[in-house]
C-alpha cells in the first residue's frame, strides 16, 4: 500500500472527529507553546547569568599570578609580556584589559569601609560592566586619571558625593602601608548593590604608581564566542606557564553550576509537559481505534497488511503532533516576541541578584532549541501511538466484522 494513501487515510480519520481532535490539537499547542516560552526564558536567564559573571570584571578568561585567588593582594602580581595575547587569534578575542585589583580601606569624613581598589584603563573596559554602567558625574578619563569612581551603595554608606574627597589606604608592593586622597569623579549605578559595595575604580597607571609597581594583578579577556573559552585557556596556559589561566566557569563556580542546572531544567520541563499530554493523546487515539474496530477489520479482510494498519495509526498521531507542534512553536515564538522587551523583575531585584540574574528577564529563542523541541515532541507522539497501534494490529478481521 503506497504511503501517500496511508497519509490520506490518517488525515481523513482525524477530520471525522473535528471537536475532539481540535481539543487534542489545542492541548499539544498549549504544551509546546508553554515549553517554548519557558525555554526561551530559561535561555534568557542563562545568558544573563553568564553575562553577569563575565561582565563583573571576570571576563571569559582571566590570567592571575598563582596564589592571588587565595590571597588577593599586590604581593601576587606579575608583568605581562608585550605579546602575551599573541596566542589568542584576533577573531576570537573581543577585548582584553589589564588591571591592578587590591584590597583597600576607603574613608570619607564620616565612615570607613573595606573594598577592592581596581586600577583600570577606561579605554579597555568596554569588555566589563564598567563600559556601559550609568555614571552620575564623570567617568574616568584615562589610565592616568587620579580620581576615583565609587558605587552608589558605597557612596551612600560613606555619605560622600561627586567632587568630594575620600582617603584610600592599602599596601604597597614593598609591603608598607600607602595612603592617598582621591577626588570622587563619579558614582556608578550597577544592577545590584554587590558590585557597588565591592569595587572602587581609578586609573591603572595612577594606582600602579601609588603601589610602587608597574605590574598588574590580572588580565581579563572577553571572547566573541563563549564556546572558544576552553581552547583559549589551553593556548594561554601553554604560553604563560608560570601564571594561572582560568575560565569563567572556574572563577565563578556558582554561576557555572546555575548555568548547567538551567540546561537540565529545560529537559525536565519538556518531560513534565509531555507527561501531562500523553494521557490525553493515548486516550484519544485508543478511542479512535476502538470506534473503527469494524472498519479496520474490514480493511484487513480485503487484504490490508498488519504493517499498514500500524503505520496508519502512528501516522495519525504524527499528523496531529506535527500540526500541534507547528502551531505551538508559532504561538510560543509569538509570545516570546511579545515579551521581547523583557519581564521586569525589579520588584525582586535583590533576590534576582542572589540568583545571578539581572532585573530584566529577556526571553531568547534559539533555533537549535526549537528544532530539538519539535523533534522530541514528534518522537513522543510516535511513542504514544505505539500502544493504540498495537491494539489496532491485534484486531481479528472475522471477529471485528461480526460486531
Amino acid at each position, binding site marked *: 500500500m503506497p504511503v501517500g494513501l496511508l497519509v490520506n487515510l490518517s488525515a481523513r480519520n482525524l477530520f471525522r472527529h473535528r471537536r475532539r481532535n481540535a481539543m487534542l490539537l489545542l492541548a499539544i499547542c498549549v504544551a509546546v507553546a508553554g515549553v517554548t516560552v*519557558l525555554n526561551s526564558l530559561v535561555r534568557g536567564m542563562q545568558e544573563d547569568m553568564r553575562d553577569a559573571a563575565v561582565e563583573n570584571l571576570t571576563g571569559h578568561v582571566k590570567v592571575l599570578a598563582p596564589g592571588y585567588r587565595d590571597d588577593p593582594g599586590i604581593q601576587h602580581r606579575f608583568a605581562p609580556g608585550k605579546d602575551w595575547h599573541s596566542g589568542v587569534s584576533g577573531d576570537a578575542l573581543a577585548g582584553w584589559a589589564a588591571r591592578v585589583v587590591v*584590597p583597600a*580601606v576607603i574613608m570619607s569624613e564620616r565612615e570607613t569601609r573595606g573594598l577592592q581598589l581596581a586600577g583600570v584603563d577606561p579605554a579597555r573596559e568596554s569588555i566589563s560592566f564598567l563600559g556601559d554602567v550609568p555614571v552620575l558625574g564623570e567617568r574616568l578619563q584615562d589610565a592616568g586619571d587620579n580620581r576615583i569612581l565609587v558605587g552608589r551603595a558605597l557612596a551612600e554608606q560613606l555619605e560622600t558625593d561627586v567632587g568630594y574627597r575620600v582617603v584610600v589606604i592599602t599596601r604597597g608592593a614593598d609591603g608598607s602601608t600607602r595612603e592617598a586622597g582621591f577626588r570622587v569623579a563619579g558614582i556608578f549605578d550597577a544592577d545590584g548593590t554587590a558590585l557597588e559595595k565591592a569595587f572602587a575604580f581609578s586609573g591603572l597607571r595612577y594606582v600602579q604608581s601609588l603601589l610602587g609597581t608597574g605590574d598588574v594583578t590580572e588580565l581579563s579577556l572577553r571572547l566573541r564566542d563563549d564556546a572558544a573559552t576552553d581552547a583559549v585557556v589551553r593556548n594561554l596556559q601553554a604560553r604563560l606557564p608560570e601564571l594561572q589561566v582560568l575560565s569563567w566557569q572556574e572563577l565563578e563556580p556558582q554561576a557555572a*553550576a546555575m548555568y548547567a542546572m538551567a540546561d537540565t531544567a529545560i529537559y525536565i520541563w519538556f518531560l513534565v509537559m509531555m507527561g501531562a499530554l500523553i*494521557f490525553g493523546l493515548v486516550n*484519544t487515539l485508543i478511542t479512535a481505534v476502538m470506534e473503527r474496530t469494524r472498519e479496520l477489520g474490514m480493511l484487513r479482510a480485503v487484504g490490508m497488511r498488519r504493517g499498514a494498519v500500524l503505520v496508519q495509526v502512528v501516522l495519525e498521531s504524527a499528523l496531529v503532533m506535527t500540526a500541534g507542534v507547528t502551531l505551538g512553536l508559532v504561538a510560543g515564538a509569538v509570545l516570546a516576541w511579545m515579551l521581547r522587551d523583557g519581564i521586569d523583575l525589579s520588584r525582586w531585584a*535583590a533576590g534576582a541578584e*542572589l*540568583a545571578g540574574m539581572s532585573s530584566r528577564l529577556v526571553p531568547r529563542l534559539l533555533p537549535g532549541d526549537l528544532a530539538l523541541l519539535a523533534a522530541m515532541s514528534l518522537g513522543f507522539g510516535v511513542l504514544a501511538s505505539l500502544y493504540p497501534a498495537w491494539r489496532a494490529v491485534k484486531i481479528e478481521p472475522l471477529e471485528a466484522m461480526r460486531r
Partner: protein
Amino acid sequence: MTGAMALQIGWRNLWRNRRRTWLTAGGVAFAVFLVVATMCVQLGSYRTMEETATSLLTGHVQIQSADYVEEERLEDALSAAGLLAARVRQVEGVAAATPRMEAFVLASAGERSFGAQLLGIEPQSHARVVSFHERIIHGRDLRSAGEGVLGETLARNLGVEVGDEAVLLGSAREGGVAALVVRVVGLFRTGMAELDRGLLLAHIDDVREAFELQDRVHTLVVRTPDLDAVDRTVDALVTALPPRWPEDAGGEPVRVRSWQEVLPELRQAIEIDRISGALMYWIVMVLVGFSVVNTFIMTVYERTREFGVLLAIGMRPRRIMVMLQWEAVFIWALGTGTGLLLATALVAWLGRVGIYLGEEMEQLAREMYMPTRLYPTFTTEALLTAPLVMFVGTQLAAVLPSLRILRLEPATALRVPA
C-alpha cells in the same frame, strides 16, 4: 431519578470504558502527584532556607534605631541597652534576645591589614538566639572579653591562626581612634564568601569600650519560638515598645523589623522561585484539564443514543448533566487519590533520606542559604492546592461538553446509530 441514583449510575457508567477512565484518572493522578510532590520539595526547601538564613546571624526579629536602619552610622545606637533588652525579653513571643554592636574596622596582624565588619556579641545570650557558634571550624567559640573569632579567609589573608593576636582599628563615636587587641580563639566558615572574608566577632564589652558606646546597642536580635510566630511577635513588640527610646524627649526612634525586611533578597528569591514553579503547575494542570474535556466530549458523543432514550422516557436533561458531573467527581477522586498516595509516599521517603544536590551544587546551596541536602515536608498548601484546582478543573471540563445535552432532541438522538 433521585440524587443517590444519579450518583450510582454515574459510578457504573465509569466502568463501561475502563481503559478510558483509567487513562483520564491517570492524567489527573500525574498532575496531582507532580504538583504535590514538587510543592512539598519547594516549600520544604524554603522553610530550611529561611531557618538556615535566620539562624546564622540575622535572627527572626531585629530591633534598632530607625536612623541606624537608614544610615548605618555608628553613633545611631539605642541607649539604655540593658533596660531595653529586659523590656524586650518580657514581650510575648520573644524566646530569646541578644544585644549586638556593629562597627567597621581595619584588622591588622604584622604587616598585613584588611577592612572587616566587627560584631560585638554577648556570647551566652548570642548562642541562644542564633547558631553562629556551630560554624566554628578551628578553635572554639567566643567566651570572654579580649577574645576574637575570625572568618576563615580573613584569618588566612591576615596570616593569623588560633592563638595569635589581631589589632582592630576604627573610629569611635566621638571621632577618636578606637583600638582593640583580640586574641584569636576560633575561626569560622559560613560558606558565604563575603562573611568568611570580611567578618569578625569580639566580646560586646570590648567593642563598647573601644568605640565609646557604653550601655548602647546597635541591634537587639530576637528569636521567636518558630518562624510562624514572627509576624505576631513583631506586632507585639511594636505595641509593647515606646516609639522612641528612651521614653523621654531625647530618645531615638525605634524600628522593629522581621527577617523578611532585614533579608529582602531571600524573600524575593523565594518569590521568584514560587512564581516560576506556579507557572509550571498551571500549565500542567491546564493540559490535564484538556484531556479531561476530551474524555467527556468522547463520552457525550458516544452516548447520544443512550441519552435520547433517557430523555424519551422522561428524564430531565439537568439530571443527565448531574450524572455526568458525578462521573467527573469519581474520575477526580480516583486520580487525586492515586496521585496523593504516590506523592505522600515519595515525600515521606525523601523526607527521611533527603535529596542530595550533588557536589557542584553544594557551594551554590550554601551561598543561597540552602542546606546541602533537601528535606521535603508536608504542608497544607502543598497537599491541598493541586487536588482543589483539579476538582474545579474536572467539573468545568465535564460541564462544557455536556451542555450539548440541553439541546438534544430525543427523537433525533434516538436515531443516531450506536
